[in-house]
């Protein structure tokens, strides 16, 4: 609507000031048309400069996020540092479990990312957005055509990540994958794992001799030990990578 009044005001000012011959009607009409024009220009300026007719709306959404490892074996959240200072990062996560496609946070001047470690088992992303919105339908009617409704002011992505998760840079993750798929390293790890599980198992049996006969319980424990080792080895590897 503001577009219509501005155009109308401009044309009306032109017609009244130029084509009305008699002085008094000319001045009166020019004054009225001029006020419409100036009012419209004032409206436009205060709309884009001071967000006239708008107010800030804060919305928060929380979603569960999953590991970027499609196999789901390793629980990890990735990030890509943008600058060398490490203050600005883009976080990469999966929206579904075992998802091949990952999502990432926006790298723009409006977005701010934060990371909190929790004792929770699951990882979450809480996205808080502050946007300009028109105060009323009337204001939207007047200025909505400019397309600035819901204009973004600030966006904060806060990741709540379990302490057990790995938070790695993309480079680290790649290196990790490379190391883990290395034949020699794999064989080595397997060997080490067997030794580790064996040792643990012996210790467990020494503690509780009834285990000797309980094969079911043994199997369960050996799986647990294997996983334990896996994580330990991974942590070692990651500290190496850093």
């Amino acid at each position, binding site marked *: 609507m503001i*577009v219509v009044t501005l155009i109308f005001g401009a044309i009306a*000012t032109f017609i009244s000031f*130029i084509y009305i011959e008699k002085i008094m009607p000319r001045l009166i009409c020019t004054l009225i048309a001029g006020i419409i024009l100036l009012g419209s220009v004032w409206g436009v300026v205060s709309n*884009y400069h001071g967000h006239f007719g708008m107010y800030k709306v804060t919305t928060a959404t929380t979603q569960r996020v999953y590991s970027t490892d499609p196999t789901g074996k390793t629980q990890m959240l990735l990030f890509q540092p943008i600058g060398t200072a490490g203050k600005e990062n883009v976080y990469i996560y999966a929206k579904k479990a075992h998802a091949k496609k990952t999502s990432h946070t926006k790298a723009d001047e409006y977005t701010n990312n934060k990371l909190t470690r929790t004792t929770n088992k699951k990882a979450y992303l809480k996205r808080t957005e502050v946007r300009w919105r028109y105060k009323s339908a009337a204001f939207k009617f007047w200025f909505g055509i400019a*397309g600035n409704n819901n204009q973004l002011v600030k966006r904060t992505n806060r990741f709540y990540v379990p302490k057990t998760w790995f938070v790695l840079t993309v480079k680290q993750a790649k290196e990790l994958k490379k190391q883990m798929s290395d034949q020699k390293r794999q064989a080595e790890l397997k060997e080490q794992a067997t030794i580790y599980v064996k040792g643990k198992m012996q210790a467990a049996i020494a503690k509780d001799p009834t285990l000797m006969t309980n094969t079911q319980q043994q199997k369960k424990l050996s799986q647990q030990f294997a996983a334990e080792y896996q994580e330990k080895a991974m942590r070692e590897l990651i500290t190496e990578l850093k």
Partner: protein
Amino acid sequence: MSKVKDDKDRSYNLFLLVAILLIGTFCTVLNQTILATALPTLMKAFDVSTSTVQWLTTGFLMVNGVMIPVSAWLSTRFNTKWLYIVAMSIFEVGTIIAWTAPTFSFLLVGRLIQALGVGISMPLLQNIMLSVFPANKRGVAMGMAGVVIGVAPAIGPTLSGFVIDTWHWRDLFGMIIPIVAIVIFLSFFYMKPVLKTTKSALDWLSLTLSTVGFGSLLYGFSSVGDNGWTSTIVLSTLTIGTIVIVLFIWRQLKLDKPFLELRVFSSAEFTIATILSSVVMVAMVGVEMIIPMYLQMIHGMTAFHSGLMLLPGALMMAIMSPITGKTFDRIGARRLAILGLFLLTVGTLPFIMITKQTPVLYIILLYALRMFGIAMVMMPATTAGMNALSIQLISHGTAVNNTVRQIASSIGTAILVSVLANTTKGQMPAKHLLHSVPLEYKVKAINATMTGYHAAFWIAVGFSVVGFGLAFFLSNKNKTMNQSLKNDKGGQA
């Protein structure tokens, strides 16, 4: 000189003559800005640097500007019909060379030859329009000329963006060739020697002084953007230019039959009108250049897209120019100019509060409002100035007016660009932030650029306000010094 007017089919002839003139000149003036968005493509095509490729526009504008003062002598010396045909043929040759250019040098040579033609055709159009129409219809006539002079440069960037995206850069030149060929062909039949000529000798010294003086001034001002005001190249060319121009002026005032009649300035009306149209030119050209930069840097638009945003404003000018011309014939320039500059000021003020998120629609709208105002001033003021001169002085008046306007717009552009660049530079964040915290750097850099734009727009507001003040000095009546020319033209309807 009266051939156009003496036959029964007079209006028919006049219509075709004007159509040929307008179409032909439109093609030539279009070339002032047609490479604006094509330069990156040409850099790739010929593997040349930015500063080299710029010569295609800088060199063009220099030759163009240098030719304008010469056009006064040419149009009072040579038969108008042949002068127009020769100018258009020179332009055609240049265009063909540019179209087929196998190397960058050929392209540049083609462009410079084109510029020779434009430098003659543009003032010639105004001369002819002022001469073939009776004094009380000059407003409309100049309004039509305004469509060509004001609109062609404005649509150049958009058109070239479109052509390059769709076809090939050679088509920028290729598409003009057949049109100009038809114009030249038709000129043999319908163009008439409408301007009075005398066999005056060319003062070679004046020609040299004018060429060197205006050439180095134009070069100096166009180098400000790249090198800054204090660089040796800018200071030396500006100094040389100024000294040579002073010598040129001194010589013109001494000569009996000067190369360029500067005594046109003895008419106060002409002087004010010339200053006014120059101020408006600065306000127009400067902002015409800065807004696309803003749209590209802040809103991330392509060159073509940003050019497209200016199109409604250019169309506004095309529609309004004949209307204000007609109005001028009735009420004179004063009221039009006062309102026009008021609207220009109102349309420019919002730009000093522009933000990085200002909706593009508002930019288009306010830009169109500015053009609405400019259309009320530019041609009416020029016509008012011309009307204050006698018919013999019109070619000189046009040449002087165009030269001053050309120099003024190059000064204005230089000021705006350097204010933009310096303010931005002063506010720019430390370079090392670009690597350590690039997003923070981006925010700070955008803020710095916005401060630069605000400063540049303040200058544009300044020019608008000065123009608004000057408009009150225009005389109220549309007085024509040369009503007598009606007799000269024979039967007036």
